[in-house]
């Protein structure tokens, strides 16, 4: 009786059974890779804004303190972005007729707010509190990168939960003294772990509390 299957089928079936495991793993790996790629996370991808605001010019060049615009970053859950009035405190005097600043002047004149495109956003089921992070010694650059060197604004971190947990499980790796929080050039020193543990102790941070679900999700 004629064989239904060609002998090459033997090889094919062995390869596909053996390979199926790899195929599935490869598919999963691909999924994870895509998920962490800038296409999904928008890391290093500047978003087009109504006004091409340059942090590099304002923060580094002019030396304006972060908190001049982001007023509630130390106290409130929401860091705050500047109102049109804040922009106009300077731009009613300088660059008064610049084309790039036309939307700001229009907003001030009409009372319609500027609709910025949000760069750092967390899902609605995450309740993040800026104030407690900043006060405990997480610097701006730890999460937002070196903003003072960005001509336009982009994310430098994925802001995924796995990334948050890196610090929440081991805060001593990332804490800095409170007076260095605004320092964009700060790098963890060689003895960061020791210093970090000291800070955790002094601030009374309960590490097991940081991994509780209700810390962020409620």
């Amino acid at each position, binding site marked *: 009786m004629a064989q239904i299957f060609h002998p090459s089928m033997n090889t094919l079936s062995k390869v596909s059974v053996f390979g199926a495991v790899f195929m599935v793993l490869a598919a999963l790996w691909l999924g994870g890779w895509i998920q962490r790629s800038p296409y999904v996370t928008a890391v290093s991808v500047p978003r087009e804004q109504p006004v091409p605001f340059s942090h590099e010019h304002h923060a580094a060049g002019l030396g304006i303190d972060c908190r001049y615009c982001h007023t509630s970053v130390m106290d409130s859950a929401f860091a705050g972005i500047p109102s049109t009035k804040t922009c106009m405190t300077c731009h009613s005097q300088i660059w008064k007729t610049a084309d790039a600043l036309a939307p700001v002047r229009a907003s001030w004149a009409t009372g319609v707010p500027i609709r910025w495109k949000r760069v750092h956003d967390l899902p609605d089921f995450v309740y993040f509190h800026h104030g407690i992070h900043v006060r405990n010694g997480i610097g701006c650059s730890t999460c937002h990168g070196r903003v003072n060197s960005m001509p336009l604004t982009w994310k430098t971190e994925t802001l995924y939960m796995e990334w948050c947990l890196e610090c929440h499980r081991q805060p001593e790796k990332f804490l800095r003294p409170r007076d260095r929080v605004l320092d964009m050039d700060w790098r963890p020193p060689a003895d960061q772990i020791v210093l970090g543990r000291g800070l955790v102790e002094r601030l009374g941070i309960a590490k097991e509390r940081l991994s509780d679900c209700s810390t962020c999700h*409620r």
Partner: protein
Amino acid sequence: MDDARLDSTAPRRTRLFGCGEGRIWRSLDELAETEEFAAFIRREFPDQAEVWQDPLSRREFLALMAASFGVAGLTGCTRAPDSEIVPYVDPPEQVVPGQALRFATAMPLSGYGRGVLVESHLGRPTKIEGNPDHPASLGATDAILQASILTLYDPDRAKEVLRRGGTSTWGQFVGEVRQSVATFRQRGGRGLRFLTETVTSPTLTRQLRSLLEILPAARWHHYEPITQDSRREASRKAFGRPVNTIYHFDRAARILSLDADFLSVGPASLRAARQFIDARRVRAPLEPPAAGQSASALSMNRLYVIESSPSITGAMADHRLAVRSERVERLAREIAARLGVPIARSETAWTPAEERWIAALVADLRAHPGESVIVPGDFQSTAVHVIAHALNERLGSTALTHVESPEPLATGQLESLSELVREMRAGEVDTLVLLGGNPVLTAPADLDFAEALSRVNLRVHHSLYYDETSFLCHWHVPDTHYLETWSDVCAFDGTVSIIQPLIAPLYGGKSPHQILDLLLDRPETDAGEALREEWRARRGGGGSFDEFWRTALRQGVVAESTLPPVSVRVDPAALEGTAPPASPAGADIEVIFRPDPAIWDGRFANNGWLQELPRPLTKLTWDNAALVSPRTARALGVENERVVDLELRGRTVRAPVWVLPGHPDGSVTLHLGYGRERAGRVGNATEKRGGFNAYRLRTSDAMASGVGLIVRPRAERYRLACTQLHQMLEGPAEDLVHVETIQQFSARAARPLEPSAEARRSMYPEVDTSRGHQWALQIDINACVGCNACVVACQAENNIPVVGKEQVLNAREMHWLRIDTYHAGDPEEQPDTYFEPVPCMHCEKAPCEFVCPVGATTHSSEGLNEMTYNRCVGTRYCSNNCPYKVRRFNFLQYSDLDTPSLQLGRNPDVTVRSRGVMEKCTYCVQRIQRARVDLEELAAARGDAASPQQQLEIHRRMDDRLAALEPACAQACPTRAITFGDLNWKTASGAVSAVKALQMQPHSYALLAELNTQPRTRYLARLVHPNPDLVDPLSWKPGGGREEHPGER
């Protein structure tokens, strides 16, 4: 399943006699041990209706599930949608996004105000809390105050000025009014009438009085359905002038209530509840007395209640007598006469039970002369009030004071309305301006207000909703809600509060002040400015006005506006007059009209939170019913949900019956405010819900009660959504509600109610709870009066949706906190009632945590049982495993995500849950988080502090911050029945936290402790203080417990 739940026509089984032996029960079915009850106990949702109508074959089901499983998880792999971030253009001062602001204002109800603090997020009020500085609030709120925020955002509120039903504008209204003003002035106001509700606002009073000076022929009438006429008339009769009586329950050791529901009704009810419970709160000292010292005696006050309809006050009574309304006056006369008041008795044959009751009461009052107080009820006759005043004077009671009434009008409201209707019918009224109120619905039926109204040439109605009265008026002007208006109001003791807005009028409403300013021909100004100027003029000179104004707005009270006490004596002539004749034997059935505990007189009918709130004693939602006692129901041949025709003086109304154990025999209670046609989408009565309109039976001679009701049972039934049997705990009720007398408690001394926690071992891993905060809650059943303030507070704070009557019938109501009501004693002979609030227990060994397949419910390191909505897939295994049945599942999309105005009122700190997600009480974790941010800051500062004094000072600030941290339920409670705190905390002075101290009390216990779930939510037993002449305190059992004297306590 057919709802023959409570079948009181079934022959009395012998088991029912066993209920005098301390047995606690939830329903008559439980006592009769019917099969229906067993079904309710076994299944959490016994009445499960099929939601999905189309049949699904097994093959299709497996195919769909396989496909879903294959792509499951891919929902996580999405790009976040691009969103915008929009700042202010010119930010308002003090508004910090992410932080809430609080403003003080007051809510007027029945004319009197109660101060509140309102939490506002980004300019939107989201939560109402009590104002600790206001005498009528003392930091607490009730259900109506909590729910008033929903009325602000009600999309069914009137949004535009209407002229003869067609859209108009405020400008056009202004134009017409200004034209008419000249005509009015020419005629001296002839034919112009104003009808308001009860008014105590100094500004409104002044405006109306100015108007009446300019237009001397105009008249100002007042009416609202809960008239309180007997109180006013009695004070005039007894004291010669209108005087308000203020009761000080903190000075009363013996209280007699003559049909007065003072714990839940009235402008001073929050204060009354607090003072009353303060005098009953029992705390055993934590340390035994030192050698040579005797233990300090524990004391409680004693409350006697005579009532004609079951109420919360009756439930808290140590001795209760439920009688027909007309009997209350006879009892009052008898008691007064025996105590030496020169009053005519009425010839009445007392039953042996009543005779013993009266004798014991009289002896008790005589033994405590200065510290006894008699409180007459608003729904009783003038004579009862006069008798109460005379009795209080005779006893020399120090527990009450009198103040001049802040109300400007002295006439009775029924008289005022009747006169107005007479004039309207005679054609003497040309223009009628109705400021608030809904008389077409609420006026006594025999006056036929609607017909009289049709004879008025120009009718202007100013109200919050386009209601029954607006429909018959020419002009309708939308009113402002108290949260969006400038005004002022007096509290029960005359303390004035400025009402300030938290948001600009959402729907372009106007306040009554603005309408009156129009009529006074004043130019239109900013409402806030106008009020400020009004007060500047009222205050005159002396000191900085700005400072005065700022302080008044900040505190919520105007300094030194409390009326001073006046001393009055009862005019002996007031006591003259014949007693009512003896009631004929076998009298007709009496009808009792009462405001609904939740929607009041019907004005809150469109408030979903209040409609869905299970009423304290009946546990009914969405409907009213004809409440009868079990004996009367049997005599009439009716049972639960049977529809009957109620006829009174030729007017008929159709109503379903509800059997309420504890209701007096021979009478029927009807709650007002239902059966409306123009309340809004929530409040309008349909075939399936909304109740019946009891106002149609109410006549001027039967405003509170009337005799001669004819009840005719019909064949059909009407489903009533009652939550009494929902989420019942399986276990003997005597272990769920511990009740004992104060003497039994003292005798038991330090023996706790249950074995200590250490004695129980668990196979689940132990957790170290010695470090960090460990949150716990203690609920004092002795203090809970069942007012439901906590339930609505929780709903407001946590964005809990309203599900509607059909879903409530399926036991799917979403309240995270429920009040379980238990009874004890013979259901036909006035059983006792106990209230037990049940939130999530936050068990240390939580059965729900172990069974979640996706880890959506976990245990935090601080003892909270957490709920993570984004992980929940809706298996509902957790709810299945919960023995307390505190978990609520969103079977359908209950939260209204579309209506824009409702989006404004939600608390932004709490997730709005979608369909398919489990939710439950979180101990208000959002508040805990806010507190922890502050506490961590303070802890760091304490660590850095230079000196021990500084450390101590910071420690004290931490104590304060912790004391201010309480979940919404604890904050709302008028009697402070709920205590929250950290078990591990030690205050600056070394004391343990309040909640820890309570957990160590000998009468502290946990629900279903034998299941070893080790709940963090514990209870304190209820204590009662019966009169030893009536019952032996040491052998007392719940329900009275003595066989030889059934029917009395």
